[in-house]
């Protein structure tokens, strides 16, 4: 009798815990796409799902449902793009060795999700809320290539040997720890309690590249992005800038950028929406003090 009365409560608790866990892992963004595009986006999705080999829209696993399907789409398109021998001069750096490794089946693949805060999220033809980042590793653990796959399964861009080629990209973006690991490190470094970590790609002077995304997280209900090991608060209460009107061309940017303070950065939120992010100190983050009151 006692067991019977407790069991439903335990189930409720279990469901609540599972749901809160799920919420914690749910991707988030600050702006929604204009719903007037729904019909076009649906039409594009249907066309992708029905595409046959030979079509410009064809991928073997349209709108891949899991990591293995993402990898299948990646490998199919890779093979298609490399179906002919090419002059190495016309290929991206290290393409031959990557191609050899892929064909040799010597690589292991890891798929990450990257939320899309760039202007490409709310496209005319299709909405791309997120991308898949496929990372290919040699048996010794060296990441040999990193490719961005759209949610539709289409290959977008890639970068070979992302962790070791020279250039100004910061080390954490090159190494790209899993989001839970990355937020643990940020929490430790800054003495904060960030939650809901996810990787994002953005446009602007917080320039989180497609294959070198930045970590975004919440604390005290506020939103932050880590860029070059500095934390910036991003808020819907910040300036509402519109692509083409206020920002996004050389002329508009030339007017806007000089007005930004030293601790302010321009960041896209997806579609036509942009805003200004403000640097936040660890103390501000810990206490939930917003820069946008």
């Amino acid at each position, binding site marked *: 009798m006692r067991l019977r009365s407790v069991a439903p409560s335990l189930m409720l608790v279990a469901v609540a815990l599972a749901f809160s866990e799920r919420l914690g892992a749910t991707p988030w963004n600050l702006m929604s796409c204009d719903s007037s595009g729904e019909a076009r986006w649906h*039409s*594009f999705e249907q*066309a*992708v799902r029905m595409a046959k080999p030979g*079509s*410009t*829209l064809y991928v073997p696993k349209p709108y891949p449902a899991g990591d293995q399907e993402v990898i299948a789409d990646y490998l199919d*398109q890779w093979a*298609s*793009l490399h*179906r*002919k*021998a*090419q*002059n190495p*001069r*016309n*290929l*991206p*750096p290290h393409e031959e060795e990557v191609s050899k490794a892929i064909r040799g089946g010597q690589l292991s693949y890891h798929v990450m999700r990257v939320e899309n805060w*760039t*202007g*490409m999220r709310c*496209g*005319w*033809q299709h909405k*791309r809320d997120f991308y898949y980042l496929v990372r290919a590793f040699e048996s010794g653990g060296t990441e040999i290539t990193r490719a961005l796959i*759209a949610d*539709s399964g*289409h*290959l*977008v*861009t*890639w*970068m070979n040997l992302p962790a070791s*080629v*020279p*250039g*100004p*990209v910061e080390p954490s973006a090159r190494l790209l720890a899993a989001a839970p690991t990355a937020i643990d490190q940020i929490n430790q470094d800054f003495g904060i309690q960030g939650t809901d970590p996810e990787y994002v790609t953005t*446009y*602007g*002077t917080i*320039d989180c*590249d497609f*294959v*070198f995304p930045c970590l975004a997280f919440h604390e005290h209900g506020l939103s932050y992005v880590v860029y070059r090991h500095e934390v910036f608060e991003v808020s819907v209460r910040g300036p509402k800038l519109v692509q*083409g009107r206020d*920002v*996004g*061309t*050389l002329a*508009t*940017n*030339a007017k806007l*950028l*000089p007005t*930004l303070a030293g601790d302010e950065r*321009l960041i*896209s939120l997806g579609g036509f929406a942009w805003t200004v992010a403000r640097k936040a100190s660890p103390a501000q983050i810990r206490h939930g003090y917003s820069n946008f009151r």
Partner: protein
Amino acid sequence: MVRFLLAILFLTGMVLEPKSCNIGFGSPTPAPSGFSLSVPFFYQSPQYCGPASIEMWAAYDGRTVSQQAIASYIGCTVNGSTQAQILKGVQYFTTSGHDAALLYNGGEGDPSTIAGDYYSAEITSINALVPVMPLVNGATHAGILIGGQWHYDTDVSLYVWDSVLFDDPAVGPARPFAAADWTGYDDVEHIVSLFATAQSAYNYYEYGGRVGVRGSGLGGHFLPY
């Protein structure tokens, strides 16, 4: 020698050479599948994507000049470069871009046609062996477009772009983008040589609309991303 490549881009597409063309560019014959200009690559100093891009374009033309010298000449600031500054730099430091102009992918007129002309200008310039400077990331970043990969589409008898190669001074050389997504990334402005792109409108009207690239579809829509 007719050295019409023919390429195309996105859903409304653009192409250059149709039928019995003799593909040049030193690509494998008879079925070329890629081409890139020999543009020397340089990483940027902080905030110097504009000067770094000009440095690459100038080096392609055989002129060696440092980013610092370019930045000093055009007047770069911590906020980067303005339209007038970048144009001034391209016109002054490059040879093939001495007549450079900033083109906007928008304005008055039919958006589909404007976009068609815009991307046709990029392929036409590459075909003329002249680099293009796209302004990407909402015009907060610049690099150099140097070429791409393509396939022959038997349905339309055209060479169709699969991907483009973008020298990104912040990330690395010859960065590939699927052609359909390139039109979303580079969707606002670019700096091109007017002479090198003189045939772009003709190419677009002659071949545009017959082509579509990987990842694009539903022909007729002007923005494939």
